[in-house]
């Protein structure tokens, strides 16, 4: 694929955000992935061109990081955390159920091209285990039925909301944000009971600080 003028300009803009342009390589790889749904040879060539690097050098970086996909992805990326805490608390069961529902394995895309499945590592949300991600947005405290419903809604194009984040829009939209192009969704609710557990408990047992200090 040839990239549009807009993408080229955005890539150059990223390079200009850093004291040394090569620092923009990770964001730039997110950018080309946001356009194509993967990091293709063309995407690598674009990064190499803008940063004046050899394509082999860019490819070496792209293959190091798990978020960059070198093959086509579905409209949505679904990650199931199967690290110890989530896996044992229910992530394994969720993985088994949806992987068999979709007849899709790790790092594979469902036949209808809608969903790429991945077993993911700890998502820094173990308090909310088992954790699933939809286009990398949190889908916390997941259950087998809840994830089944979310996936069927996503496949039918119905609205699905992140538990701590916005409405799910597709992997390419998330990738654009990671590239450093804002989407103004920061107001989407993100604070839940588990994040407030200690604060509520502190009030209950009368262990708060004077307002002059905090």
């Amino acid at each position, binding site marked *: 694929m040839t990239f549009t003028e807009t993408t080229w300009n955005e890539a150059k803009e990223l390079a200009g955000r850093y004291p040394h342009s090569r620092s923009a390589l*990770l964001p730039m790889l997110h950018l080309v992935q946001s356009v194509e749904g993967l990091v293709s040879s063309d995407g690598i060539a674009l990064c190499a061109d803008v940063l004046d690097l050899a394509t082999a050098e860019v490819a070496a970086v792209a293959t190091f990081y798990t978020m960059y996909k070198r093959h086509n992805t579905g409209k949505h990326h679904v990650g199931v955390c199967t690290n110890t805490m989530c*896996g044992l608390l229910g992530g394994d069961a969720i993985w088994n159920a949806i992987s068999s529902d979709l007849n899709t394995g790790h790092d594979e895309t469902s036949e209808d091209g809608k969903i790429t499945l991945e077993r993911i590592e*700890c998502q820094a949300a173990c308090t909310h285990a088992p954790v699933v991600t939809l286009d990398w947005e949190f889908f916390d405290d997941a259950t087998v039925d809840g994830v089944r419903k979310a996936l069927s809604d996503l496949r039918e194009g119905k609205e699905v909301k992140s538990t701590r984040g916005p409405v799910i829009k597709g992997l390419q939209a998330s990738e654009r944000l990671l590239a450093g192009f804002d989407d103004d969704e920061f107001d989407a609710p993100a604070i839940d009971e588990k994040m407030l557990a200690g604060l509520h408990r502190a009030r209950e047992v009368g262990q708060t600080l004077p307002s002059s200090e905090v």
Partner: protein
Amino acid sequence: MVLTPILTAHWDEADSYKLEGYKRHHGYVALAKALKSDPDSIIQTVKDSGLRGRGGAGFPTGMKWGFVPQNDGKPHYLVVNADESEPGACKDIPLMLANPHALVEGVAISSYAIRANHAFIYIRGEVPHVIRRVTNAVKEAYAAGLLGQNIQGSGFNLEVVVHAGAGAYICGEETALLDSLEGHRGQPRLKPPFPAVAGLYASPTVINNAETIANIPYIIRNGADWLKQWGTEKSPGFKLFAVSGHVKRPGIYEAALGTTMRELLEHAGGMRDGHTLKFWIPGGSSVPMLTEAHLDLPLTYEDMAAAGTMLGTGTPMVFDETTSVVKAVSRWLQFYKHESCGKCTPCREGTYWISGLLKRLEKGEGQETDLEKIDELCQQIMGRSFCALGDAAATPFPGAMKHFRTEFEAGVRTAADIAFDPAATTIFSKANV
């Protein structure tokens, strides 16, 4: 010890993550105070407070800042480590969702102290909503003249860039993070030189954890002694403890250092009904596990070290008697194998072999000599790897063997899923409702 809602004090207010909400509670007062003081006096205050890094190693923050050479004519950089990817660690992510301005104000004050005019916040890539919240906080701060050129007429300039990673645990290791931020594969660098002397772009660089930096505004405004009212001489202050696992109310509990796990467990409602504690891990999968016998130890850097473990990230994972420890450890080793950057042989090869042997034990297909072999492999990794990821990978197995040897021995004949019904371990299990 007590609960100390400080960083978390206002998380239940609808605009806790916005400039207006933050300013309602003394937000950016510390920055104004700092900009009127000598940068060295800020470093001194942080030294006096005894604040230790919250990224896992507990290095004294003020001392680290003091290593940055001054008047060297080179640009200085501040890099915030918000890569939070250690299994079990889940405190920086909520902090940045709910109170990103504490981090941004901390970045401004810390940069001023170390004379940096450029700061980077490196956030793991898998958390877009966190990146939104921090990016928005940075934007609001720029618009209010709290970042950028000539901040509040002080003559101090600071550019702040929010940077997303792309999925690699090793990028949390500080020198790997720097390589990643320079646009390379995230592989650790040889130390020395330490980042304080030659870090980002070979210039003096301070790397601190997000929670560490978020502490700074509170210390600068309230003073070094204020922090020392909590904790111990060696571990002053408070901490975001994230309690996960088989407890009734998993979540974020901000408390004084020196709080015991028994106290934290009580705050978290205790174990789920009808179950008992089997093991817990104070700070991420990279530190050795503890049991019931250790519940009354103060959660401090020194007490955890004395017990043969580490406070680490201060995010206790709690498992009950339904849990197969073999499976738990095996899963962590799959993680380390996946995340080993491949730069050095002990870690690259060792994690491959250990994870394979553990998988076999988990299936009940181990051989009599496997435990010895794994132990040997761990010893070959420990202290012989290029970075601390290798040591971390060699930690869970010996740690678990200390308390649960017979369970590993059973792995020669009995599959973990036979010995421990996986359905009972899940939180959907009937026993739980």
